[in-house]
């Protein structure tokens, strides 16, 4: 990250007036970049716009650029949708639980593995890394969940996701590169125990990596779909992603508004799809601009040893 900040384009450093060819290059390049940004943003923007626009306008299939014919019944209807509300609650609860469990497993574990004086460090590390390349697959995992007696409980989602070996490696690289060896040696001479060093020095110096880990685990759990489908049974325990899939992709939507006419109902159903996609993606999209630099720094930490 630090490297990126100091990066300046060479022409700016040398203050050379660009040639005609370079100007053409720049113009084409800027056009490509603008087009790319539009391609990336427009589908998302369209879904959000469609969620607040009269479905009759949306269904004519014309491109939407700004809000027109506002129609908010979809949101009112979505708020009364019991599955959606319970899906939301479940997802928040599972994400919260997973964040605590995952940090409690990953941060101390990664710290211990970052210590060069830990006897058996390499073989233990190999045991972890090996699971990135070879694993039991879904059926043995399913049987494990069953035999541990956590099938159809929040733990069936939270515990298997308690450690991601990739995250563990990223976190270990961080500790290796950012905790000065001198600090440890000085503390050890003063009789500091490993516990005390970890809690008093390592953790306060690692706020960045804790934030990165929190974000990685939280987005992974927020987006969990298949594990929920496999390891949970009751409808009222399903997280948002499963609800989303049932409602939008399996067409299980129906407008409950009593007394509404058939045409009105169909309108609602059409809009509800956009509304539900929007409400399930929006929390990430709101948090995203504030935390994206942590994601990027995580990638770079991972690349060191990835």
């Amino acid at each position, binding site marked *: 990250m630090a490297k*990126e900040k100091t990066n300046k*384009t*060479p*022409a*700016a*450093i040398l203050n050379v007036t660009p040639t005609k060819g370079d100007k053409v*290059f*720049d113009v084409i390049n800027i056009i490509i*970049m603008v087009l*790319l940004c539009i*391609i*990336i943003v427009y*589908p*998302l923007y369209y*879904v959000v716009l*469609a969620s607040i626009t009269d479905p009759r306008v949306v269904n004519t*299939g014309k491109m*939407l650029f700004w809000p027109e014919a506002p129609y908010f019944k979809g949101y009112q209807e979505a708020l009364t949708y019991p599955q959606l509300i319970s899906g939301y609650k479940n997802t928040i609860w599972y994400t919260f639980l997973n964040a605590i469990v995952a940090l409690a497993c990953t941060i*101390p*574990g990664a710290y*211990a593995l970052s210590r060069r*004086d830990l*006897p058996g460090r390499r073989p233990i590390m190999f045991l972890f*890394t090996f*699971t*990135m*390349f*070879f*694993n*039991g*697959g*879904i*059926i043995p*995992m*399913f*049987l*494990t969940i*069953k*035999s541990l007696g956590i099938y159809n409980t929040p733990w069936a989602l939270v*515990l*298997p996701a*308690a*450690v991601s070996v990739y995250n563990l490696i990223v976190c270990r690289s961080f500790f290796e590169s950012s905790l000065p060896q001198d600090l440890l040696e000085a503390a050890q001479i003063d009789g500091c125990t*490993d*516990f005390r060093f970890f809690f008093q020095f390592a953790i306060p110096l690692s706020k960045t990596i804790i934030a990165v880990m929190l974000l990685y685990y939280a987005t992974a759990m*927020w*987006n969990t*779909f*298949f594990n929920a489908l496999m390891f949970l049974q009751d409808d009222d325990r399903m997280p948002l*992603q*499963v609800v989303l899939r049932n409602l*939008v*992709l399996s067409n299980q939507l129906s407008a409950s508004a009593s007394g509404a006419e058939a045409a009105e109902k169909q309108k609602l159903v059409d809009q509800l799809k*956009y509304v539900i*996609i929007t409400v*399930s993606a929006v929390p990430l999209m709101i948090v*995203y*601009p504030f935390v994206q630099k942590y994601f*990027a720094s995580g990638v*770079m930490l991972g690349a060191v040893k990835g």
Partner: protein
Amino acid sequence: MAKNAKASADPNANDRSLIQRILRSWQLYVLLVPALVWLILFAYYPMYGLIIAFKDFKIRAGILASPWADPLFKHFTNFFSTSIASTTIINTILLSVYQLLFSFWVPVVFALLLNQIRSNGARKAIQTISYAPYFLSNVVLVCIISVLFSSTGVVNSILASMGMKIQNFTSEAQYFRPLYIGSSIWQSMGFNAIIYIAALSSISPELYEAALIDGANKFQRVWYIDLPLIMPTVILMFILAVGNIMTIGYEKAWLMQAGGNTSVSEIISTYVYKTGLQSAQYSFATAVGLFNSVVNFIILVIANLIAKKTADISIF
């Protein structure tokens, strides 16, 4: 510290000091316990469960008491004797190979072009926008595809307004791969470019200065400086991507399965899910999954060996 162990000349003392070191590090092992418990329960215990691929597993009897399959490789031979075996294997390989061919170079080009944007602010802004879709879940992604490409969706309307026929993008076999790969480029181009952008930003400005003095234009600077210098990173990422060729995610493929596209969208992992968990053929599905894992593991190890040789970087 390791130094203490080396300090003693007596070999017996070495053994003793290893035990001492282990005892002295007990607090570190305590810190490691939660992660180790996870490793045993959710990584190695399921691996032990793989032996049901060689058994006739009955859920009542449990893993140990279930009888061995007769012959031992029954479930594997059963799989290979069906036509679905070749279909799913070919679909898996084609989907990954096409994905690699069509999407691998996109982040590289994007990073090279982005690096030529002069304003720092604009560059940061474009980069931030570019990896926004990465954090959408597969479900949200497939939902967006399904609404945009439905028969009444905006894509078909645009086609219709240009006088073209309306297509069933989401259920016809011929559109499955383009949609799958296109959406994954859309979703991960920016994120995959991060590593190249970082590699570009570490190129020494002196090289550009020298090139400018020699009168090299922008295109030449990209072609003769940027590209060769990020090539090692590109090659490494390519080898790693080849190594992952059989691990293509089942979640998105399964979610995108609709109507007539199963002839191309049924890959090994979605087939494992269906036979295993939807029709409860545990042993058979485990055997199919194990076959996939083993092939994948072999490819990964080979790719990793090549990466080690060429770039001196290894994931092990």
